[in-house]
Structures are given as structure tokens and as C-alpha cells.
């Protein structure tokens, strides 16, 4: 059975525009200029139960708007969608028992109380019986490693600790689908990895369908087999992550800081030097032609370095490349 079925989904917003200055302010009082903005346009896809999908795109691409339509918060302008057989915006409250959502930048835990109190509240709100609640809570405490955090007021937790509790809170009612909107935003590497591991465990244990939006290529690579890229409200890519990686995420960027001055131009085979400073270089290479390991080895052979940082190209570059290659979804 398909967990999500989306057909021609569209969302327009009306935006009041104001010309600058005092005169503009007066004019917009009497004759407001209203512009219609298309946030999401003709989005269609389906997602099988148990699948993990990365739904990605730059800021303002329409990711959150799509999630909010699928969770029933926003009414679409046109198109159809079913989530677990429900029409989200018509059967929002019924559907709510079966879906979970995490909106990365917005807190749901009670700020002044320990997370355990919010967990208790959610158990009641989702009408869980005691045994089921305790079993799932123990599973989540284990998966997210938050046992020691449950009884500390949320305001005293670090961002990473809080996010782990936030996500766990959304999973107490064992939702069949979880919508994660930027769950790892602003987190350090360790917290990110813990969260990814927990999400994977959840998918394996419970066959939970995962719908993830993220800016972080790492989230996508390590979790999702399938990627949809959305830009200006339209889908521009819908395929396996391995294909995205093979075709577009091949470039890597390395920042190196050396312990000594660089006196001559820095050059390595198969590697392009993007920028060279007195003590550091920024390099780019194609990971298909030469491995990360090989490049680091080559750098180490030249001179000792203090710091090294390997990055994926920003999503914006990937999108630009998709456009340049004329790739159709």
C-alpha cells in the first residue's frame, strides 16, 4: 500500500505588496497591490509504506509548504493527496493519530518542564494505554540515548539534546509516517549521527515511513534511498539517491590549513585549486576520478597540516547542475 499519494498538488499564497516610501504606504492603504505567489506547483509522487524519502530544495523552494499540506495544516489551492488513505486537510484530526511531525525550528516541548512531563502529556493526547506508552518510550529513550535527559527542564538542555527529545516526543504514539522538517539543522556532527541512527532504527523496527526535508547532504545520503528535489515549487528530480550521488554529488570540496607558509602554487593531480592563501588552500575534485582518501594522502605527503575539512557541494550547486544538464524529473 502507498503511504502517500500526491497528485498535481498546488499552493498559491496572496502577498500584499507595498511600494517603498510614505506615498507607497498611503497608496497601499486604499489600493493594495496583491500578488499571487506560487509556492508549490504540480507536485506529484507516491511513497510506499516503509520507504525513506528525502524531499530537498533550497530555501523557499516549497518543502515546508508541501509538508504542511500533507500534515493537513494547509489547504491546497489545487490537486489531491492522500496520506494513509486520509485526505489530510479534510481528516486532519483522525489522521493525526497515525502521523508524527517535527518542525526543526519550532519547539513543541514545554520549555520550563522536563521532557518526561511533555511525554506524559502526549501519551494522554494520543490516548495511549500505559503499557504501550511505556514500551515505546523505553524504545525511544534507548534509540536516542536520552535516558539521562528526561528529567531535566528543557531550557537547560543543549540544542542537540533538545532536538533528540523533540523527535522522540513526536514518535511516542508510534506514527506510521513521520514528517521531519530539517531535524538536524544547527546540530553538531555527533548529535546528527545519533539522530540519523535512531531514525534508521525506527524504520527498521517499525517499518515507519520517513519523509525528510534537509539541507544536509549527509542526512540524505545516510538515510534515504530516494530523493525528490524541489525548486521554485516544482519537482526537478525524483530518483534514487545513488543516482543523484553518481551524477551530481560527485564533487567534493576540501579546506586545508597548513602549519607552514605556502610559498609556491599548490597543485595536486586530478585536483583543482579553487583558492590559495598564505597558510591554506581550498581544493575541489571529482570523487569518481580520485577518492577522498587518495586526496588526503596526497596532501599529507606535501607538508604537515593543522586542519582539514571535507564538504559536499552546496545543494544550490547540485540544483544548478541539474538544470544545466537539462535533467527532467
Amino acid at each position: 500500500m502507498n503511504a502517500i499519494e500526491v497528485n498535481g498538488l498546488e499552493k498559491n499564497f496572496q502577498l500584499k505588496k507595498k511600494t517603498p516610501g510614505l506615498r507607497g504606504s498611503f497608496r497601499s492603504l486604499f489600493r493594495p497591490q496583491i500578488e499571487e505567489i506560487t509556492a508549490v506547483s504540480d507536485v506529484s509522487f507516491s511513497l510506499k509504506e516503509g520507504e525513506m524519502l528525502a524531499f530537498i530544495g533550497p530555501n523557499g523552494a516549497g518543502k515546508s509548504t508541501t509538508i504542511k499540506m500533507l500534515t493537513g495544516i494547509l489547504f491546497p489551492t489545487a490537486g489531491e493527496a492522500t496520506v494513509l488513505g486520509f485526505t489530510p486537510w479534510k481528516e486532519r484530526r483522525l489522521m493525526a493519530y497515525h502521523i508524527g511531525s517535527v518542525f526543526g525550528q519550532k519547539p513543541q516541548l514545554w520549555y520550563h518542564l522536563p521532557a518526561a512531563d511533555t511525554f506524559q502529556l502526549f501519551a494522554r493526547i494520543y490516548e495511549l494505554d500505559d503499557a504501550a506508552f511505556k514500551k515505546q518510550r523505553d524504545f525511544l529513550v534507548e534509540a536516542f540515548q536520552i535516558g539521562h535527559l528526561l528529567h531535566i527542564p528543557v531550557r537547560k538542555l543543549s540544542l542537540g539534546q533538545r532536538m533528540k527529545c523533540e523527535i522522540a516526543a513526536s514518535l511516542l504514539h508510534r506514527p506510521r509516517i513521520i514528517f521531519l522538517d530539517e531535524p538536524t539543522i544547527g546540530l553538531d556532527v555527533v548529535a546528527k549521527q545519533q539522530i540519523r541512527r535512531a531514525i534508521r532504527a525506527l524504520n527498521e523496527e517499525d517499518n515507519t515511513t520517513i519523509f525528510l526535508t534537509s539541507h544536509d547532504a549527509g542526512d540524505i545520503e545516510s538515510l534515504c534511498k530516494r530523493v525528490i528535489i524541489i525548486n521554485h515549487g516544482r519537482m526537478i528530480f525524483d530518483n534514487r539517491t545513488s543516482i543523484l550521488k553518481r551524477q551530481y554529488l560527485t564533487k567534493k570540496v576540501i579546506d586545508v590549513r597548513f602549519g607552514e607558509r605556502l610559498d609556491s602554487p599548490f597543485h595536486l593531480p586530478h585536483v583543482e585549486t579553487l583558492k590559495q592563501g598564505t597558510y591554506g588552500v581550498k581544493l575541489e575534485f571529482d570523487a569518481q576520478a580520485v577518492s577522498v582518501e587518495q586526496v588526503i594522502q596526497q596532501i599529507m605527503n606535501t607538508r604537515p597540516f593543522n586542519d582539514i575539512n571535507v564538504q559536499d557541494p552546496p545543494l544550490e550547486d547540485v540544483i544548478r547542475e541539474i538544470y544545466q544538464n537539462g535533467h527532467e524529473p
Partner: protein
Amino acid sequence: MLSTKINKYTSMTAINLQNQLAYIWDTLNRSLFILFIMFIFVQLWAAVYGDGGSPDREIAGLTFVNVIWYLLIAETMELGKARHDLAISEEVKDGSIAYRLVRPYNYLVYHFFHNLGETLVRMGLVFLLGLPIVLYYAGLPQIDWWIIPPVVLIMAGGMLLDFFTLSIIGLLAFVTEDIGSFRLIYQKLVFVLGGLMFPLDFLPNWLQGIARSLPFQLTTYAPARLFVRFEWSLFVDFLGMQLLWLAILGVILWLQYRWAVQRLAINGG
């Protein structure tokens, strides 16, 4: 089945009670205002009644003791309010309303029960803080204790009515940037036409007529007046008016909520 539904909503009340208790000093500080206002009221009305509050004198049928107890009840109703209109408006502005809407409950019912937790703590605090002053200057109220249940019923009706009004104001955040002005207008209307500063009985007849036909008096004046001078006919009047206004404001609120949810645009993506 029913008990899980009841549990669901009482747990919202309970968690806000916990939250208030976690910040009891904060809540207490905000409630301290009652000390000043009751002290000033006592001095003011003692001067009006003469002889430091003459026990025999009546103004518009109310004695000094009546008036002081009236003001304590009225202030408890007003200062005890949880101000969820601000919470709604914040949720609309910062987009956290998204989290409220993905849960299996009704948004407004959630706010009502959530509100109740805070309101009960605050009302309790305000009443207890004001009580010593009232007892010292006015003594015990001259009432029959059996009137407490009907007065509490009118209090509950008043709280619900106030909840409806403030919800309507809070949801205005969908159309206007700042609901501050609407709150201010409502507050001032409660001050004067709601009988918060003095019983409506002291107003000139023509103004009393207007005030008595409006809903503002039903939250503060109604329970306070019944508490100090209980009359069954007045009780029936208040109850009828409350039911009428609950129906009117309830319909407005319901229509406004449906309209707002359909045109919802979440701020901040």
C-alpha cells in the same frame, strides 16, 4: 473511552498547572498587584462611606463590606485571567500553531483546558493575597454559604464567556499584525461597563441600562454582585444572559476559526 477523552483534556490543564508551579514566584509577582489595588480601594470606599467605612450606610443598596468583597471577587476574576489571546496571537505570528494543528484535538478546546490550569492558579493566588486586607478592613462577608455553588456556576459561565471573547481577539491575529488595541478596548470596557472599578449599581440609570444589556458585566460584575447580595431573580437573569451571549459569541468564534484555519499561511516557512 470517555475517560481517555476526559483524561486527554484534563492533562492539558495539569501540565499548565505544573508549569505555573515551576514558576510560582513569577506568577506570584504578577499577582502582587492585588495588594496595592485592594488597599487603595479600601481607603477610597472608606472615605466615600464615611467613618472609615460606616457599617450601616448603604449606597445603591450596598454596604461598605459588600463593596469591598465585591471588588475582591471582581479583581480575582480579572487578574486571574490567563491571557490566552496573546498565546494564540503569538502562535499565529511565529508559526508554532502548526504543532497545535497536527495533534488529535480541537485547537480551541486545547486552549480552553490549557488556560484553565493557569487561570485556577492565578485566581487562587490573587484571592488569597487580597483576602487578608479584606478581612482586616471589612471582616467576613455577610452571606449564606449555600449561595457558593450558584455563584461558582456564574463564575464558570463568566470565564467561558471571557474565553470566547479573548479567543475572538486572539484569532484576529490572522488579519491584523497586532491585537494589542483590541485587547485594550476590551479591557477598558470591562473596567467600566463590566463593573471592575465599582459595582454597576453606582452608575446613572441610563448607563446602567446599557451596561446590563452588554456581555462585559457577565464575567466580573455578575459573580461579584451575586456573591455579596444573592437574589434568585438576579441569578436567573445572569444565567440567561450568559447563555444568550455564549451562543452569540460561540457562533462568531466558530465561524471565525473555520475561516482562519482555511486561510492559514504559516509564517516562517
